[in-house]
């Protein structure tokens, strides 16, 4: 057994909250710059230039890239040989509290979806646990903005809807979203599992770098095909027209029931943020 203290988790989460919000991942920057060069529509190129200028300012000043510093989605991959001294949940929430307060990040969480009183410190985090072999603890903090979260959808397709049904649904979600989620977007797709598992897979898909295709050729091809179809819709950056509607489509899949074909589409904006550290 390897001992990891709760305070170590708190320190890492606090730091990752700030770093994820102020510094766009390298793969996202490269993808935005690449899209700019491939964008034939001048007004769209100009918006992509402003987006680039924005994350450079955020980098220089260590200032949030976007004012919606999100709800803190925290993914923990806990090695089975790890023992944490104290409550993991409390440790993560303390990290979020500290990161969002000391890092001048916006507090965007309400304590109850209907009475809507702000918790004042951006807690609680949305926690996802995975038990894995080994003695390491991998922590990923992904601040998730709600302009794009609100444009996400899930559908329980019939097995007879098949591959075409999945493609049609992904395109419908992007079309419905239009300019609302701050395109260019990143599209996370979860196929299979159960109602909740599909949604989890879609969120997890957003953690994969945008320049990394699925390891399985069938899904890698599907990701590429969907990206091309989405970018033929003409929505463009900010919805003012253009080729660059999406930067990537990431698909995760899982076995499912003989009667079902769940599909979840989790949309993220051009500020797709996540930062990982291994303890």
């Amino acid at each position: 057994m390897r001992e990891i203290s709760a305070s170590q988790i708190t320190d890492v989460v606090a730091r990752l909250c700030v770093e994820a919000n102020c510094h766009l991942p390298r793969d996202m920057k490269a993808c935005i710059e690449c899209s700019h060069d491939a964008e034939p529509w001048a007004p769209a190129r100009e918006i992509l230039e402003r987006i680039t200028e924005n994350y450079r300012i955020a980098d220089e000043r260590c200032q949030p890239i976007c004012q919606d510093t999100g709800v803190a989605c925290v993914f923990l991959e806990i090695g089975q040989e790890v023992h944490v001294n104290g409550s993991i949940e409390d440790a993560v929430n303390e990290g979020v509290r500290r990161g969002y307060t000391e890092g001048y990040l916006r507090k965007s969480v309400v304590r109850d979806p209907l009475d809507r009183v702000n918790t004042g410190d951006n807690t609680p985090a949305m926690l996802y646990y995975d038990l894995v072999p080994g003695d390491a603890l991998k922590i990923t903090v992904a601040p998730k903005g709600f302009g794009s979260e609100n444009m996400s959808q899930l559908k329980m397709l019939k097995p007879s809807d098949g591959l075409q049904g999945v493609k049609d649904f992904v395109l419908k979600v992007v079309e419905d979203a239009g300019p609302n989620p701050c395109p260019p977007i990143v599209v996370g797709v979860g196929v299979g599992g159960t109602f909740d598992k599909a949604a989890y897979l879609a969120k997890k898909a957003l953690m994969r770098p945008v320049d990394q295709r699925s390891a399985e050729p069938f899904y890698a091809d599907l990701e590429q095909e969907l990206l091309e179809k989405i970018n033929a819709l003409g929505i463009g950056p900010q919805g003012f027209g253009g080729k660059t509607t999406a930067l990537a489509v990431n698909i995760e899949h899982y076995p499912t029931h003989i009667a079902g074909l769940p599909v979840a589409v989790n949309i993220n904006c051009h500020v797709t943020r996540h930062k990982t550290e291994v303890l």
Partner: protein
Amino acid sequence: MAIRVTSPLTREEARKLHSGDSCLISGVIYTARDAAHKRLCELAAQGKELPLDVKDAIIYYVGPTPAREGQAIGSAGPTTSYRMDAYSPTLIALGETGMIGKGKRGPEVIAAMKEHGAVYFGAIGGCGALLSKCVKKAEVIAYEDLGAEAIRRLEVEDFPVVVIIDSEGNNLYETGRKTYLENFT
């Protein structure tokens, strides 16, 4: 070439702006999001005075991050506007002439814009760090308990926006996409 817009904005000036116009706004604008809009409309329904002068006002849909020492405001980009659709017609009828946000608006808002003469501006979503540089002064004037959602009076200089929907109902989300598709497919 960008059009210089001064805020407060009269209805007459608002009617001169057209969908697709790039504008630079200077002057005083107010911030309000979901929770503040709800409170404003509740006051209006009771016939009570609002904590800001809505006549000729431009309202910016934003909840900024906290300002660091020496900054007027933290990151301050637009939030998605359709969540304000239930409230905007009331404020437009009371004299609001401009809204700054991002994303689609409902038919009831566009109808009110046409009837009274108001415009819907878009700022670039997800560019909060860049846009914060155009805010020279920020002061909470109401609903401090709402934190980021409090109403703030902002003094802005050359704040960059595009007219998405004008007072005749022309919509850049429809025309921009159509023009692009006609030219490049």
